[in-house]
């Protein structure tokens, strides 16, 4: 019987459970490197990894201490600054650098202060779905039988509802849409992907000889799960979770754009983009900068995920 996980998504399919390449004749014989050690050696030289790591570090810094980057307020508008006045691209880092929006607020300040919302949503949703989906996937994959059947059908049920549509319905249930409401709405349907990936990985790893060996030596279920299976099933989950993080940030903005995500007075890129759409012809910069930041952030996480995948999968080298 084919596995449902096989027919999930491209991301899942492209992540093969790493196998150790035994036939590399030129491998350094002086010291045997582990899969993770090998992956790290590969990552360190990967320009995509370096660029994305720096970008992500920067984003985290901006979202933690936005005032380090601008002293201007993102919410205090002054209509003295007309949004049609030309952005002063030479004044890097000043409030007028990227121009003003319709309410005379500094686009740059809003960009900086809007980072936190996007990063928080991405990180929080990813953390929740990885833990929840990881646990469920591990249970389903390891125990099999009716537990698996039940959890798999449950996953199917949640997977069957289109992601965006489902999130829209959930969000509609809340009057005040804070960051955490958005996190809940995205995690509500988002956990299925990780569950499927984890389940597939655990099923593969479960059949490995070293797991049988551990069982034969009398290791308990918990020990087998956490010492033997989890470390070896983690790789595809990490890759999918990293790439999905970018997707959640994008989804948050999309929901704002549809009028169902974060809304003013919350400062976020999605809010600014949907506000900027109205002035797309006269003041494209209001739309442009948050769009660029958003895309760059998503790109950083996707690049990181891709780099990690390539490093973990010897077949792709």
């Amino acid at each position: 019987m084919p596995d449902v996980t096989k027919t999930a998504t491209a991301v899942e399919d492209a992540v093969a459970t790493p196998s150790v390449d035994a036939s590399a004749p030129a491998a350094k014989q002086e010291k045997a490197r582990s899969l993770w050690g090998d992956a790290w050696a590969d990552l360190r030289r990967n320009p995509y990894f370096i660029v994305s790591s720096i970008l992500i570090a920067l984003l985290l810094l901006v979202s933690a201490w936005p005032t380090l980057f601008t002293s201007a307020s993102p919410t205090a508008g002054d209509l003295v600054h007309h949004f049609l006045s030309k952005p002063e691209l030479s004044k890097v880092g000043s409030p007028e650098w990227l121009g003003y929006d319709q309410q005379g607020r500094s686009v740059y300040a809003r960009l900086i202060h809007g980072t936190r919302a996007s990063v928080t949503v991405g990180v929080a949703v990813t953390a929740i779905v990885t833990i929840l989906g990881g646990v469920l996937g591990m249970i389903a994959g390891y125990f099999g039988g009716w537990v698996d059947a039940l959890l798999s059908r449950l996953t199917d049920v949640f997977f069957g509802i289109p992601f965006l549509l489902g999130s829209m319905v959930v969000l509609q249930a809340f009057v005040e849409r804070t960051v955490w409401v958005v996190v809940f709405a995205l995690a509500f349907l988002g956990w299925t992907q990780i569950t499927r990936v984890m389940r597939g990985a655990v099923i593969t790893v479960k059949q490995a000889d070293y797991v049988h060996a551990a069982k034969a030596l009398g290791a308990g279920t918990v020990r087998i799960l956490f010492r033997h299976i989890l470390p070896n099933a983690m790789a595809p989950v990490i890759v999918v979770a990293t790439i999905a993080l970018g997707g959640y940030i994008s989804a948050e903005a999309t929901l704002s754009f549809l009028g169902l995500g974060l809304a003013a007075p919350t400062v976020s890129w999605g809010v600014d983009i949907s506000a900027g759409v109205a002035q797309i012809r006269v003041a494209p910069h209001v739309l442009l900068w948050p769009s660029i930041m958003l895309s760059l952030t998503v790109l950083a996480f996707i690049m990181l995920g891709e780099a990690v995948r390539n490093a973990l999968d010897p077949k792709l080298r």
Partner: protein
Amino acid sequence: MGRYVARRLLQMIPVFLGTTLLIFLMVHSLPGDPVLAMFGDKGADPATLAAKRHELGLDRSLPVQYVTYMRDMILHLDFGTQIRNGLPVTDVLGGAFPITLQLAALAFAIELVFGIGLGIIGGLRAGRLADNLILIFTLLIISIPVFVLGYIIKMVFAFNLGWIAPNVSTEPVLSEMIAPAIVLGGLSLAYVARLTRTSMAENLRADYMRTAVAKGLPRRRVIGVHLMRNSMIPVVTFLGTDIGALMGGAVVTEAIFNIHGVGGVIADSISRREGATLVGLVTILVIVYLVTSLLIDLLYAVLDPRIRYA
């Protein structure tokens, strides 16, 4: 094979019921009263409201409502009526689906042709300039949120170049749909390209490829038959699951280009709490999803003889 299909069909029943129940409960837990909203600011006396509720069956308990709804749908293909205007939901969906289907089909065709095409180029030139350019292109497409991509295309091609109209007309011709289809299919196109590329690059190193060369087969046969037959398996799988996703994802594209399809109905019925419409719509999408995933699994067996169905 027959037994496998039967078992899969049986497994679909709980998933189908579960998904419809889930969306049903989600919609009905939304705050606000659609019947009250129907009368607008004027309001109405409680007796009228109660009568209306009774007429729509909204005064019954949720489980009863769900069972009634599903019974009517399965037995009579009756998806209920819209609260606002009393139109049958089947009519509303029947009016909206064709255009979304057109859009999704066109997007699918674009994704198929260009996604696989770019993937093949990248896979055969793995590690070289063309491959890296395609990698960067696909990463960019994946990173740019759909609605941003939509506005970029709208800005450039409609406002700056004037090649297309910013909004699609009510009775759109095929050429008008190309830009929206590119926006809708862009993300999947990038995924298909990446998947094809990865799959080809991986299979290029397979032992049977070496055998094919050693047999003295010409390059186009080595690639066209031996490599492609193996590399397309994961791609076909992805393409299959994507058909349903395209239809569900059309909501953003339709909003950007002002297309009156399923997306509009979704947005509308969420904000007006049109439970019957939403549940009916999700039901159709779920059926599409379940049927395509079964077909994909069966196709999988045709493409890969190592898969056996017991």
